């Protein structure tokens, strides 16, 4: 069923009894051309683009829980392409372009809102770094604009500009950045993939990878053995666990990142604001809740829940940036498991078996990458060669010394 204003009107007149489930609940078949492990944003997007752009429809997406239960439903919904390095920037800009056409492409309202992303700077050195990053972006054809203190004050008058320790000097804005309704991204891709013949198998946990020599022949799951010609891993925080089943150790650690939402307030933040002196980023949802987050907790975790110390730290950073938050009540906090790579950048590559493909290491920036990650991973799986924007996102870059270290932190995943 194609969604349109007319279909909403007609179904409304019929008591909304005519809607059908947006995707099937199929039993897995014994064999597929491509099996994708992980029904999150990236796995579903990969299936969608495999079917739509590359004509491979005999595909299964295996999800151990329900789709949208992992990081695609746990992030702070921010999209942006304000990256510095040539290994990253064209890829994230491809993602931004796909976001811009996504809703028409998959006929689903994902509430893509290009409300602008502002990174604040608080020192001369930080301004210089932002000028450099903004220029790198513009050289890649990405929009970037440096705003001075007065220009920031005009749009965000409630910030603590004269903070004694971290006065706000200005900011770098990407106006095309913004937010997206994250659950709808999972649902839209799932619906689009399903309608083209992809089987989305939920509550199906992969427990082993069967191999024959240099090839993968299929996966053992809680719903039995499923054979495949090509196996694609997109398991996010559980990437190390799944890769281990195939005999592969990854340059990845799993860490917990928390996110928060406040009670609903009247509209007052109409863009995404990030604090340059601490790790804090905030936007306001259409329901009025402030959606915000900070840094990862800093220790390895698979628990999908965080610690109070980080809650306090994030709240303090928020309060330092926006004093008006001091009496806002937080409704909920939650945690997601991040696949923190050793250089802070992702891996999209064919790995140590002829027909095994890996999509991992997204750190806590995976959501914004969802469309391009799916598109480029599908490109790699279908054509056997990387998309031009992911040529540097190789697994062997670590031993070859070609890191993509956006933050310059080195092999210390809890600092990326």
């Amino acid at each position, binding site marked *: 069923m194609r969604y349109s204003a007319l279909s909403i009107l007609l179904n409304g007149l019929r008591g909304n009894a005519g809607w059908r489930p947006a995707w099937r609940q199929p039993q897995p078949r014994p064999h597929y051309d491509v099996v994708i492990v992980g029904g999150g944003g990236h796995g579903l997007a990969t299936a969608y683009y495999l079917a739509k752009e590359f004509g491979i429809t005999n595909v299964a997406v295996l999800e151990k829980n329900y789709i949208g239960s992992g990081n695609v439903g746990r992030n702070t919904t921010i999209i942006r392409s304000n990256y510095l390095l040539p290994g990253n920037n064209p890829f994230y800009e491809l993602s931004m372009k796909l976001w811009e056409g996504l809703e028409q492409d998959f006929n689903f309202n994902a509430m893509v809102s290009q409300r602008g992303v502002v990174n604040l700077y608080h020192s001369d050195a930080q301004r210089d770094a932002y000028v450099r990053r903004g220029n790198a972006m513009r050289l890649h054809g990405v929009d970037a604009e440096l705003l001075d203190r007065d220009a920031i004050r005009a749009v965000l008058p409630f910030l603590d500009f004269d903070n004694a320790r971290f006065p706000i000097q200005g900011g770098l804005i990407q106006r095309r950045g913004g937010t997206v309704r994250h659950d709808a991204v999972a649902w839209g891709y799932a619906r689009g993939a399903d309608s083209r013949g992809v089987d989305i198998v939920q509550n199906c946990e992969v427990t082993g990878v069967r191999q024959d020599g240099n090839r993968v022949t299929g996966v053992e799951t809680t719903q039995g053995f499923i054979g495949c010609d090509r196996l694609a891993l997109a398991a996010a925080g*559980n990437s*190390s*666990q799944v890769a*281990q089943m195939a005999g592969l*150790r*990854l*340059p*990845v*650690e*799993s860490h917990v990142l928390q996110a928060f939402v406040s009670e609903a307030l009247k509209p007052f933040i109409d863009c995404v604001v990030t604090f340059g002196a601490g790790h804090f980023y905030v936007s306001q949802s259409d329901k009025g809740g402030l959606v915000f987050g900070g840094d990862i907790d*800093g*220790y*390895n*975790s*698979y*628990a999908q829940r965080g*610690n109070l*110390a980080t809650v306090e730290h994030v709240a303090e950073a928020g309060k330092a940036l926006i004093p008006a938050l001091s009496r806002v009540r937080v409704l909920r906090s939650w945690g997601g498991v991040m696949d923190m790579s*050793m250089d802070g950048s992702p891996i999209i590559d064919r790995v140590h078996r002829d027909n095994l493909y890996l999509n991992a290491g997204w750190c806590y920036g995976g959501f914004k990458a969802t469309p391009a990650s799916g598109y480029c991973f599908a490109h790699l799986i279908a054509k056997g060669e990387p998309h031009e924007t992911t040529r540097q996102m190789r697994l062997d870059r*670590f*031993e070859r010394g070609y890191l993509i270290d956006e933050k310059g932190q080195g*092999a*210390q*995943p*809890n600092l990326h």
Partner: protein
Amino acid sequence: MASLIPCPHCGRRPKEEFTIRGAALERPGPDAGQAAWMDYVYLRDNPRGAYREYWHHTSGCRRWLVVSRNTATHDVTGAEDAAAGKGGKA
């Protein structure tokens, strides 16, 4: 995670006093070769379950500890001085 870490020198102390470094790995010798160093610097077992990692008691005794912890449940099961296992003076 458990709120209190059993520091061998200071007793049970709040975990906010500590700084976490990461996996407690065996450092290869200087001439161990590129593969061993690649493994040490970049590759991780990243286990779901029992885990040993270096913690620094930054706001306490300032000793490096090896804390045993479960990455799935956050339970802390023990802490020892990092030097103790290497013949150093704990």
